[in-house]
């Protein structure tokens, strides 16, 4: 199931999220808002009308008290490598105006809000609901405009946005490398805001193709799984969990299991 893509020379940035460590504290979400100029509204409780580039889901094993267990699962854009060949995530080929593409050199799935004209086809295509639509004009009340990050453009109403793996940080790291005459970018130089903030270090980020990066080893852990592997979306976000029910909740059923009658677990978010 754990397919490898691409040769060793191209980078494939991705993350490994250790669900055993994630306590659902929300630091990744807030770090993301702050880094990426994600606006806020008075009411953000409609999670389908709430801009979140990474959202934490709460899963429960559904067992009655006191055998109940819960697990938090942070879900950013999965930056799918896609089906079959390199660079065909579900969302990219459907965009009629090439507002999103797959960067062969880094594996990042981009989203360019200024190109996007808001048809939302990519949102329909994404099984993870990682893509969010700007239903409203963003508003920054009082003096909150002052904290906007100049490295990330604010988005306007009527376009789709999503996690970029903080690609602007890659751009900045690359600039520095150019200045210093380097080809390589260090692992620590390019880390997205969520991974940087995570107080339990549940999020590890790096080049999945690079044996020197922490994610390289982690992704091959026996605890590793990816969401909905059977769709062959081939995500670059890996999850680690020691719990079978969690791994089952990530895929519809596990590889070596015979197919249950209805493979959908009754798992509430």
């Amino acid at each position, binding site marked *: 199931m754990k397919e490898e893509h691409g040769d060793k020379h191209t980078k494939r940035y991705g993350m490994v999220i250790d669900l055993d460590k994630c306590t659902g504290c929300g630091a990744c979400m807030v770090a993301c808002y702050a880094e990426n100029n994600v606006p806020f509204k008075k009411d953000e409780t409609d999670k389908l009308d709430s801009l979140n580039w990474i959202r934490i889901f709460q899963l429960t094993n559904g067992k009655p008290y006191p055998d109940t267990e819960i697990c938090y699962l942070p879900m950013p854009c999965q930056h799918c490598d896609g089906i079959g060949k390199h660079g065909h995530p579900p969302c990219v080929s459907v965009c009629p105006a090439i507002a999103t593409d797959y960067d062969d050199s880094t594996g990042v799935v981009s989203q360019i809000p200024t190109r996007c004209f808001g048809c939302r086809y990519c949102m329909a*295509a994404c099984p993870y609901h990682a893509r969010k639509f700007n239903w409203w004009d963003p508003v920054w009340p009082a003096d909150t405009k002052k904290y906007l990050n100049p490295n990330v453009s604010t988005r306007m109403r009527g376009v789709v946005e999503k996690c970029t793996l903080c690609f602007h940080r890659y751009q900045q790291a690359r600039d520095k490398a150019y200045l210093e005459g380097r080809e390589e970018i260090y692992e620590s130089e390019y880390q997205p805001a969520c991974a940087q903030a995570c107080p339990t270090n549940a999020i590890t980020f790096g080049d999945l193709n690079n044996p020197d990066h922490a994610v390289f080893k982690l992704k091959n852990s026996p605890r590793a799984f990816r969401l909905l592997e059977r769709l062959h979306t081939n995500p670059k976000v890996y999850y680690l969990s020691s719990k079978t029910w969690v791994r089952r909740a990530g895929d519809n059923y596990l590889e070596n299991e015979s197919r249950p009658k209805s493979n959908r677990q009754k798992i509430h978010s």
Partner: protein
Amino acid sequence: METTPLIPQGVKRCSKLQFSLWMAAAGAVLLWGVYAMYLVWFKGLNQTNMNDAYGFALWIWADLAVIALGGGAFFTGFLTYIIGKDKLKNIINYAVIIGFICYSSALLILAIDIGQPLRGWFIFWHANVHSMLTEVAFCLSCYFAVLTIEFLPIIFENPKLDRVPFLHHLSHNMHRIMAVFAATGVFLSFFHQGSLGGVSGVLFGRPFAFREGINVWPWTFFLFTWSAAACGPCFTILVTWITEKLTRKKLVKDDVIQLLAKISGWMLATYIIAKIADTLYWAMVTAPSMGFSFMDFYSGNPVYGIWILILEIVICGIVPAVILITRKGREAKSLLMLGVVLAVVGVCVNRWVMILQMLAVPVVPFEEWFMYAPSWQEVATTILPVAYGILVISLAHRYLPVFPQERELNPTN
């Protein structure tokens, strides 16, 4: 009754007052829709009940439905000009007008639906040729141009316009090469109807909609074209029948209707066989390979049960097909109309399922079904094309010689 030069000679039309009242009623509905459209354009899509799970909603369904129903134009055109079913010339004008209405509505809906209408042209300029939606946009626009070209000569046949020599000639010349336009229209329709099917069929992140197929075209590509060809003419028949009821006169001879119904019937019958085969393959092979069992798609939610599949395939597929392919069914007026209505409902249900149910089905195992009800703005903008269609049909019927057989069927003296 009046006989201003605007109204074609030798036909009866209702009084100006009656016509104005009728138009005012439809106009009021239209205005309501226009107001909603204004709200959506100026305040944004937050006026709808769409959300991040329901990026496509009522409008897109309406879009797909009207395009399927407008398929009567291309298929009737195909039969008339290319196959040479001359009899259908008696209904082709109306089919074209209905198609024109459907397609202009579809374009309008798309313009309302997108988040940044002022950038809508990006779809052409920055076209991604791999996207089904790009193909839809191009073919839709081109076909709309073709439909306009097909509609124009009918407009020029208005007595007053016909007096303009240039328009008279233009109308004549366009008629002469109509087969070329019609053929182009058929070509375009084949692709955009198909691409609309492809829109959901290619989504390999959506096991409910995903279909295997040939090369880049999923089975839904062909099924959509097929069903539009089957059900579009049924819609033409239905609207013709409604027009006849409203104007209280016969406009098209029965044999014309029955010929069209018979062809539709066979199209529908073959379509439904293909659809059943497709459904079986999807339920038994495609979906399980993606980790889903058939009943996952039809349980665990308050609305979408197995009933919708039965409705689509049996009640609105097999039943109308049987009615329309049997002579008895076609000849009994009420049965014929039942068949036609079911076919129209069937194709609408199919489009609903492929777009709205697709989005309702949870894919990530820890998500729940997504339910959605449209806001009034969505309803209003969806009804807008209906009002607009009524207006156009009323104007066309009053001022243009749409039905060649009308004079014969309704002698004025």
